[in-house]
């Protein structure tokens, strides 16, 4: 395996982006930040890969339009996934592993506010037995949350504790769109929304974009004092049917964590768009109690579709760059109720 590290990262998050869903306007300055961090130009990037969805944009081939932000004369080596950009990062990491390229820039973007996000996401479900009922994302998460409450695995207080810690930590995150902790009691006194979920249990609808730079070996050392070296990267998927899997578990997350190796992780950024999902993930990833979880505030503080997972990996990598941690973990999820999970572990070396 080649040594590959995260050496650049930039993000934007907002409640409502007043611009085109192609998000070129957001991507150009993000790429500029990545060039500044690395001292590179677009010609130093060996491979480009993005994560986005036409269903979010409401137009076809929106990812092709976004390529304008790169500039493609001379032509670039480019690919796309209709998943969170964390999976685009996985493709880029594999591309570097093949030896074909040494560097990659990965980006994700999405204007969730253009439509009704929780409704649009029904289109990722089984088209015969689920989509015609339009089960929205919040409802599916509510079924999962209730299953765990009924099984005695967590309760509303444990969910409120996750939300309170996340919103408190988010106060230090300039990109967070929802922030400000109070107390567990105060959160529990708020009204139910989608019983058993309160609004703070659900990630806010968020627009945004993010970009990340990967580099192999010396290319990484040349541009970063303390690169975040990828030590494990793995993803798995559970059945899409909500009836045939135990919703209180996420075996795909456990398998991804086992394959990536979580030994010694000090900081974990988990992509949990609903408070109880952090509790599922902590268990499946086997994180020790002293692991710092979501110091950025996590997805409950801002959850731009197709980017939020990549942002988790970026926030984790930043901890390594800054010397705050030696071993970190970034996680991303996709699909209904934690169906698909990807885990990336990174370390700093002295």
């Amino acid at each position: 395996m080649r040594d590959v590290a995260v050496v650049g990262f930039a993000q934007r998050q907002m409640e409502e982006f007043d611009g085109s869903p192609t998000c070129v306007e957001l991507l150009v300055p993000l790429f500029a930040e990545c060039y500044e961090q690395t001292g590179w130009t677009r010609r130093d990037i060996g491979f480009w890969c993005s994560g986005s969805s036409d269903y979010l944009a409401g137009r076809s081939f929106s990812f092709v339009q976004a390529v304008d932000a790169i500039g493609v004369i001379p032509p670039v080596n480019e690919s796309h996934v209709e998943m969170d950009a964390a999976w685009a990062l996985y493709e880029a990491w594999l591309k570097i592993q093949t030896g074909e390229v040494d560097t990659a820039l990965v980006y994700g973007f999405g204007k969730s506010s253009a439509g009704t996000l929780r409704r649009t996401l029904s289109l990722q479900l089984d088209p015969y037995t689920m989509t015609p009922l339009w089960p929205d994302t919040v409802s599916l998460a509510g079924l999962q949350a209730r299953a765990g409450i009924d099984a005695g695995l967590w309760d509303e207080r444990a969910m409120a504790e996750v939300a309170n810690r996340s919103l408190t930590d988010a106060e230090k995150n300039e990109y967070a769109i929802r922030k400000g902790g109070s107390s567990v009691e105060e959160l529990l006194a708020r009204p139910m929304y989608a019983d058993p979920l309160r609004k703070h249990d659900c990630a806010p609808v968020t627009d945004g974009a993010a970009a990340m730079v990967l580099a192999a070996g010396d290319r990484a050392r040349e541009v970063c004092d303390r690169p975040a070296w990828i030590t494990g990267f793995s993803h798995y998927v559970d059945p899409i049917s909500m009836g045939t899997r135990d919703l209180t578990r996420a075996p795909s997350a456990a398998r991804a964590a086992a394959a990536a190796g979580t030994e010694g992780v000090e900081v974990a950024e988990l992509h949990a768009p609903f408070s109880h999902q952090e509790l599922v993930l902590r268990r499946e990833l086997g994180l020790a109690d002293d692991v710092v979880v979501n110091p950025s505030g996590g997805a409950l503080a801002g959850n731009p579709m197709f980017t939020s997972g990549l942002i988790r990996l970026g926030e984790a990598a930043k901890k390594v760059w800054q010397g705050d941690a030696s071993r970190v973990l970034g996680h991303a999820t996709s699909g209904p109720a934690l169906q698909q999970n990807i885990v990336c572990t990174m370390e700093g070396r002295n």
Partner: protein
Amino acid sequence: MSRTLSAPVTVAFDYTRSTGPVLGRFLTGLREKRVVGVRTSEGRVVVPPPEFDPVTHQQVDDFVEVADTGTVTSWTWVPEPVKGQPLDRPFAFALVTLDGADVPMVHALDVTSPDQVRTGMRVRIRWAEERVGAITDIACFEPTEDAAPGTAIKLGDLGDNPVTGVITPVELDYLYAASPEESSFYRAIAEGRIIGQRCPTCGKVYVPPRSACPADGTPTTDEVELSHTGTVTTFCIVNVPFLGQRITPPYVSAYVLLDGADIAFLHLILDIPAEEVRMGMRVQAVWKPREEWGTTIENISHFSPTGEPDADYDTYKQHL
């Protein structure tokens, strides 16, 4: 004035899918007010039936019939239903394990408040009055006092009119925003002007302007007012009728390179027989009456020949 222009857009499409033998049986059953599941290799009765066994990966064939009553195993309140959901007033989505099945299915439960739902409550299918062989043939579940009647039975005859396909209409509503550059373009069009933007790096002029130069990724900044006259770089004759077509075929759709621009844009060429349109032909914008103008490219009705001599190939060969 807001920074960008936006407009509501609805994207709609009917997905037509074949059902195959497994889902076909399930949907045929629903049409006949019967609930069809399968017994998997592990002995579990699963509804709706999976097409392949989750353990052996063989096609399933042990079809069974279960009751239209069951037990709620999880639920969530839906305070603000979205378009297309089974009920248009607040309701619960529930996981319901039907009597005779071993795993739950997702559907709506018609109750008026969350106080009326609990895990473990008994429910019954409310069948849709008109059933077509779709999951929506189950209108929803409703509370019932009926006790569990027992186990799954072997599936009997479903008749000789099996469901072989489903049509699922999908409709999504968006508020579609133009980029700031596109917004400037449409605002100018509403005043009878055509504007583009020049890339500060390579000097190329794009119309309509884009947020970044596709050649080198630099944001385009300098606004350029363009001529209403240009050259046909390439074109096609539309002979095929399609839904929403406004002009009777044959007609010509062409790339028009406005004088001073570096990228052509698509528009109609009229006022000339289709077979006489040619590459290099000089054309000019024909505007609709001013009172019909809006922030739309349709302010320009079409392009019409100017009668000038054709442009030299060398003047537009870089723009094909």
